[in-house]
């Protein structure tokens, strides 16, 4: 079996994220060139932080990576799939199955319990109904919220809410975790908990992409990409 096709042997798995002169200009009017065309490659298992000031285009970049928006120029390949060739149908499916999101503003359903909020992430990607509660509980235990399963978001602290959001992002076992300012609303103690959690997920083999405007958080990743006025640039590590 291993000798079957030797010429294919050295072929590496395709990178998780590959930008080929991808950029985005919001149509406006007036048109806003939020992301200048750039090349970028992120391999499986990397922990990359994206740092930049407010309005620099971090969320725009994340939306493209997360298939919530499409580049207006160039190409974006996810797991080797040219996403420009996909219809909305397939983009949605890919998003639901491969990508986990942690949003800056949590986006928890206000009237649903922590457990239900986590289980929502398994609604659309074919996880059998029976398995969902157990998996949601497992994810919440993992983020240290095993004792708050039934709590609604309004009864949770900011740090706890962020951890529910992380549990929701990881419960469907995505290969790529995208976090937009995961510590933006948290004090340093809570921020440390969340970062430790992300480290743990990274150690498990997940590709993690964290957006931040905080240089300290940025230093946490194995690799940092800086963004300024829509221009992406690899940042040298000290």
């Amino acid at each position: 079996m291993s000798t079957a096709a030797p010429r294919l042997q050295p072929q590496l798995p395709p990178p998780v994220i590959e930008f080929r002169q991808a950029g985005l200009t919001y149509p406006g009017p007036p048109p806003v060139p939020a992301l200048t065309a750039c090349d970028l490659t992120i391999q499986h298992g990397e922990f990359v932080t994206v740092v930049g000031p407010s309005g620099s285009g971090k969320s725009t970049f994340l939306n493209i990576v997360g298939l919530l928006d499409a580049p207006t120029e160039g190409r974006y390949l996810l797991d080797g799939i040219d996403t420009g060739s996909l219809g909305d149908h397939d983009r949605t499916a890919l998003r639901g199955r491969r990508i986990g999101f942690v949003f800056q503003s949590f986006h928890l359903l206000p009237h649903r319990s922590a457990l239900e909020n986590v289980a929502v992430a398994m609604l659309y990607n074919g996880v059998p109904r029976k398995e969902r509660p157990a998996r949601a509980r497992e994810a919440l235990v993992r983020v240290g919220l095993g004792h708050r399963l039934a709590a609604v978001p309004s009864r949770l602290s900011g740090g706890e809410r962020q951890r529910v959001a992380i549990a929701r992002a990881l419960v469907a076992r995505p290969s790529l975790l995208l976090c937009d300012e995961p510590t933006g609303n948290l004090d340093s103690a809570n921020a440390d908990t969340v970062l430790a959690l992300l480290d743990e997920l990274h150690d498990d083999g997940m590709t993690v992409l964290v957006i931040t405007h905080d240089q300290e958080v940025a230093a946490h990743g194995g690799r940092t990409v800086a963004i300024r006025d829509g221009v992406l640039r690899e940042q040298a590590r000290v």
Partner: protein
Amino acid sequence: MRPRRSRTAAVRVEPSRFAVRDTLSESLAGILQRPARSALTALGTVLGVGTFVAVLGLTATTSSQIDGRFNLLTATEVTVEDIAREQNAFAEPGFPADADLRVERLGGVRHAGVFHTVRLDPATGGVRAAPVGGGAGGGERTDVVAASPGALRAAVPRLCQGRLYDEYHSGTRQRVAVLGSGAAARLGITTLDTGPAVFIGAEPFTVIGIIEDVERKAELLLSVAVPRTTAEEIWGAPGGGGTTMLVATEVGAAQQVARLAPTALRPDHPEYLKAVPPPDPRTLRSGVTSDLEQLFLILAGICLVIGAVGIANTTLVAVLERTGEIGLRRALGARGRHITTQFLAESGALGALGGLVGTSLGTLTVVGVAVVRDWTPVVHPATVATAPLLGLVTGLLAGLYPAWRAARIQPAEALRR
């Protein structure tokens, strides 16, 4: 070959799905999030569907009431009343002595006969199974009906024992009696083998028959019937207006018989008699499908439209309020269609719930009105089955636009909120 296959497999992503059960539970959760708002939203549908059910149910109930009154038996029954005294204070009794014969000669008449209730002197007492002073039959009063043989036959009796009296008994003024089954039971008479007699006042009458059931004049079952001639000989003619004639006709002949009977009985003074024909079913029905019913149905339609607008409005507000949730669901892999389905299911469930409550309230209204009016409530199963569907359809129609709007919201846009 193999690597290429794995490569295409990587491109072909398994599509997102949204199971029916998940759709239902998510939309139910959406409704229960804001129970008070949901209840108010559903109110329009409740009123609309409730009015529909109530109007249809009440119509069905009243027309079944008419169906009950108007059956074959009543369609072939004519009664003739003696109103001679109302016309002329000094008039003789309206019915001639040969009244039965005169009417039975008319075409389409099966049986006809005159009867009246005998007024007994309270001092001599009522009907007894033994002579005055004897024990039995002292309790409840048993009516004595003086009926010509034709009147008995017109009531279509079914005998359990013995026979009816006929023109011979009547012509010779025999002291014979026919008992209704209820009267016989009261008097303790179970068999004719012993040749039992009853005493009416002081007069003994031989019981020659016991009637088990009648189709008309059910009061006969609790009475003792004696020949009219015999009764008049003993107790005299009844006072003015006490006599009635019962006519059983062939099917379709009743109206004609009613028209002819007064003249046939009293060619000299037909106005002394009033013939009551059976009700004409056509006039009855036209009275029921009235403008009022249509008005109520229009009202119900308006309620439904208001209900639909209410649901549409609330759902639209909910869509705008829940933009963030829509963005989140899209990020989690929901397709635009899944968002549409969810909001449609919510508005549809709201409508169906309103429809269910409305159906119950409508049915209760029908039952309530029927109980007050002493009617049999009738609500057609088709009405009960389709009314909640009406609510469902209202809800779905109302949800179309908001659900369509929800699906068009761009995920990146929605998540920026």
